[in-house]
C-alpha cells in the first residue's frame, strides 16, 4: 500500500474513530458505576476466554507434536522402488519368506560381487517370483548394458528394487514436482569392508547427499556426510553407520580420516552416523547403522551400473504425502511410457512407521493411538491422521464445553449488568434522545458497554489462558502452543460474547420512548 493510499484510508477511518471515542469514554464511565458487578462479570468472561485459549493451545500443541512425530518417524517419506512384483508370500504361503521386504534386509554370504557370475540357485528362485508385469529385464534374450539385477546386487531373491527401471533422470524429474522436499537416489548391495585385519560384512548404500535431511533421527557422532563435489566426482569416500564403525575399528575409536577397503578399492572414511532418538537404537543387522554409505555415483562407477534400486522422497507437508505419491506415480508412468492398461513398473509406498508410542507425543494422544491402532507400522498415514484427529477432537470438545459454560455465565452477567445500566440510566437515555440521539446511537452506546466489559475480561482471560497453557504443559506434560492467531481468536470470542449478550439490553434501550424515559425517576 502506498503512503498516499494509506493516508486516504486513514482519512476515511478518522471520523469513525473520532465518533467511537466518546462512546468508549461513556462506556468506561458507566462501568465504573457498578464496579462489583462489572468485576464479577469480567471474571466469568476471563475464565471463558482463558479456556478458549488453553483449548486452542492444547490443540495446536498436539498438532505440532504429532507433526514433529510424523516427521521424525519418517511418515512424510515416500519410497519408490524399481519393479513391481507380487510378494513372495502370496505364492508359497509366506513359509519361505524370512524377509517381508525383499532387497532391504537381505544378508547373503556374498563376499564380493566382482566378477559377477550367475549362480546355481538363481534360476529356480527367479521362477518362483511371478512378475505381474513383463519387464525387458526379465527377457532372457534381451541384451543389457549392465549386469542383471541378481548379478548386480548378488541377490538370489531378485525382487522389488532389483528391476532396472528407475534412473537418475527420474529422480531429477521427481525433484521438480510441487510438494516434494528432498529426493535421494539409492543403489544398494551387501559388501565386505576391510579395515586393516578386521572385516565386517554389512549393507552398502550408494546414496545421495540429501539422505541426512530425510533421516531426521540421524546424528553425526563424528565427521560428516559426503559433499556435492564428492558425489559429482564419484569420489571413494565412505560414511559408516555406528555399528559398522565399532565392528571395524573398535568402540571409542574415531575412524574419520582412516582408510577402508571395499571391492578391493580404497575408501576414505569421512563420517560416522549415530541415532539421535532413543526410540531407534543402532543394532547389528539393522539397515541404517550396520551399514556403510557412499555416493550412488561412486557405486555406479565402480559397479558399472546406470540404474537405481530406489528413490526416497519426502513430502514438504506430512498431510500431502498421498497427493505427492500420486503425482510421482503419474510422472513415472508417463516417463516410462506405460499405457493405461499396464501396471506400474515401479512401486510407490508411503511409510507409516512406528515410534508413535515413543517420546515427544503427548501421553494421552500416544495412549489413544497405541490403544486404538494395531500394527501401527502398517496403517496408512490417512488412518493415522484420522485417529489423531479423533483424539484431539475429544479433548477439544471437553475444553470447549468448559469454555462454553463459562462464556455463557459471563455472557449472562454481561446481559444482567447492561440491563441494570439501562434501567439506572433511563433518564439519561431520554435526555440523549431529546438532544438528537437516534435509536442506533443509543444501541451502539450500550453495545459498547457490553463489549468493553467482555474485552476487559477477555484481556485478563488471555493472560490467564497463557498461564494456564504453561501450567498444563508443566503439570500434565501436554505440549501447548499459544499462537498470535489463537490470542486474536480469543479476543474475538470475547468481543462476540459482548455483542451477543449486550444486544438485547441495548435494543431495549434503543426502543425506549424519549418522553417516557425522561419522566422516569
Amino acid at each position, binding site marked *: 500500500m502506498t503512503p498516499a493510499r494509506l493516508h486516504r484510508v486513514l482519512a476515511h477511518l478518522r471520523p469513525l474513530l*473520532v465518533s467511537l471515542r466518546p462512546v468508549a469514554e461513556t462506556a468506561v*464511565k458507566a462501568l465504573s458505576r457498578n464496579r462489583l458487578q462489572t468485576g464479577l462479570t469480567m471474571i466469568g468472561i476471563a475464565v471463558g476466554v482463558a479456556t478458549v485459549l488453553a483449548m486452542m493451545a492444547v490443540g495446536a500443541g498436539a498438532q505440532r507434536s504429532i507433526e514433529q512425530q510424523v516427521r521424525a518417524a519418517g511418515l512424510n517419506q515416500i519410497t519408490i522402488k524399481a519393479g513391481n512384483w507380487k510378494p513372495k508370500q502370496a505364492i508359497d504361503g509366506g513359509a519361505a519368506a524370512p524377509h517381508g521386504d525383499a532387497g532391504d534386509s537381505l544378508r547373503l554370504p556374498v563376499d564380493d560381487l566382482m566378477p559377477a557370475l550367475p549362480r546355481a540357485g538363481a534360476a529356480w528362485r527367479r521362477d518362483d517370483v511371478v512378475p505381474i508385469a513383463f519387464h525387458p529385464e526379465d527377457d532372457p534374450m534381451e541384451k543389457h548394458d549392465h549386469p542383471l539385477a541378481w548379478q548386480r546386487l548378488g541377490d538370489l531373491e531378485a525382487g522389488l528394487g532389483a528391476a532396472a527401471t528407475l534412473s537418475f533422470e527420474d529422480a531429477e524429474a521427481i525433484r521438480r514436482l510441487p510438494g516434494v522436499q528432498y529426493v535421494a537416489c539409492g543403489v544398494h548391495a551387501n559388501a565386505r569392508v576391510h579395515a586393516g585385519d578386521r572385516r565386517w560384512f554389512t549393507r552398502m548404500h550408494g546414496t545421495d547427499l540429501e539422505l541426512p535431511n530425510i533421516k531426521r533421527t540421524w546424528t553425526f557422532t563424528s565427521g560428516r556426510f559426503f559433499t556435492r563435489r564428492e558425489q559429482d566426482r564419484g569420489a571413494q569416500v565412505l560414511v559408516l553407520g555406528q555399528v559398522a564403525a565399532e565392528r571395524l575399528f573398535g568402540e571409542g575409536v574415531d575412524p574419520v580420516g582412516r582408510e577402508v577397503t571395499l571391492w578391493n578399492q580404497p575408501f576414505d572414511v569421512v563420517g560416522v552416523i549415530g541415532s539421535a532418538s532413543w526410540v531407534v537404537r543402532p543394532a547389528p543387522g539393522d539397515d541404517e547403522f550396520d551399514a556403510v554409505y557412499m555416493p550412488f555415483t561412486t557405486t555406479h562407477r565402480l559397479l558399472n551400473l546406470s540404474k537405481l534400486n530406489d528413490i526416497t522422497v519426502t513430502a514438504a507437508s506430512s498431510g500431502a504425502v498421498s497427493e505427492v505419491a500420486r503425482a510421482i506415480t503419474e510422472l513415472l508412468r508417463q516417463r516410462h511410457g506405460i499405457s493405461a492398461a499396464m501396471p506400474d513398473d515401479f512401486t510407490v509406498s508411503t511409510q507409516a512407521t512406528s515410534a508413535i508410542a515413543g517420546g515427544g507425543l503427548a501421553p494421552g494422544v500416544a495412549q489413544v493411538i497405541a490403544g486404538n491402532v494395531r500394527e501401527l507400522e502398517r496403517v496408512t498415514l490417512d488412518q493415522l491422521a484420522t485417529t489423531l484427529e479423533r483424539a484431539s477432537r475429544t479433548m477439544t470438545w471437553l475444553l470447549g464445553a468448559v469454555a462454553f459454560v463459562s462464556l455463557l455465565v459471563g455472557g449472562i452477567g454481561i446481559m444482567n449488568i447492561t440491563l441494570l445500566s439501562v434501567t439506572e440510566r433511563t433518564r439519561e437515555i431520554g*435526555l*440523549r*434522545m*431529546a*438532544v*438528537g440521539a437516534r435509536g*442506533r*446511537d443509543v444501541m451502539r452506546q450500550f453495545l459498547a458497554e457490553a463489549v468493553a466489559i467482555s474485552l476487559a475480561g477477555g484481556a485478563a482471560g488471555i493472560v490467564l489462558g497463557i498461564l494456564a497453557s504453561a501450567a498444563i504443559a508443566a503439570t500434565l506434560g501436554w505440549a501447548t502452543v499459544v499462537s498470535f492467531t489463537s490470542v486474536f481468536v480469543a479476543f474475538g470470542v470475547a468481543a462476540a460474547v459482548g455483542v451477543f449478550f449486550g444486544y438485547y439490553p441495548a435494543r431495549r434501550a434503543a426502543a425506549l420512548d424519549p418522553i417516557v424515559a425522561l419522566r422516569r425517576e
Partner: protein
Amino acid sequence: MIAVRDLTKHYHVGDHVVRALRGVTLDVAAGEFVTVVGPSGSGKSTFMHILGCLDRPTSGQYLLHGRDVSHLGADDLARVRNETIGFVFQGFNLMARTSALENVELPLLYTRQGALGAAERRSRAMRALAAVGLTDRADHHPSQLSGGQQQRVAIARALINEPALLLADEPTGNLDTETSQEVMKIFAELRATRGLTIVVITHERDIAAWGTRTIDFRDGVVVSDRVNADEPRATVPAEEPV
C-alpha cells in the same frame, strides 16, 4: 416558524381514552417569546412534546419551518431535535459525575456530520457556557452547582447546536423566585440577541409575563391567546415583573 392545525393527542389508558389535546390551532412567528400557562393536566407538556418532535400528534398538522413534521420517522425526528430544537427541563436533566462542559457538549455527539473533534467540541461548549455566564464553572460537576447554575448549564446545552426553537417545560419549577427571574432574563436576552423563538411552559403568572405572548390552555384546548401589553418589559426586563 410554527404552524399547528387541529392538533389532537389521545392516550389510551386501559379501556378509556385520555384526550390530552383536543384540537389546537395556532401559529408562532420567528422571534416570538411565547409563554404557555394553564392548570395541571391541561395538556401543556403534551403540546410541547409535539412541538419538540419528541412525540407525534394523533391527528392534525404540525409545520415547522413550513415542513410537515407530524409524520416523520423516529430517526428524522431525532435529527430535527438535534439541529432545530433546544430543550430545557424542569429537573435540569444533567448527567451526574460529568462536568458542566461535557454536559453541554452532549448534543454535539449526535450531529449529522458525526461527532466533532474533542477540541472543536470543547471550544463550542465554552462559547455556549459564556452565553449563560458560566465560563468559570466549566469543570464543575452538577452536584457542585446551585440550582440556577445547573439550569444555566442546561440552557447552554440547549443552545450548543444553535437551534431556531428553544422549548422549556417549567424551567423555573425547581428554582426560587430570584433565580427564576435570572433564568427568564437569560431567555429574554437570547431572544433579543439571537432572534431565537422561545416557548416556555409555566404555571406562574409572573414568569408568564416575560413572554411577548401568553397562551392559556384548559382541557386540551387554547382558551386565550394574547400579546402582552407591556412587551418592552420582556425584552428589557425590569427589576420587578408584576
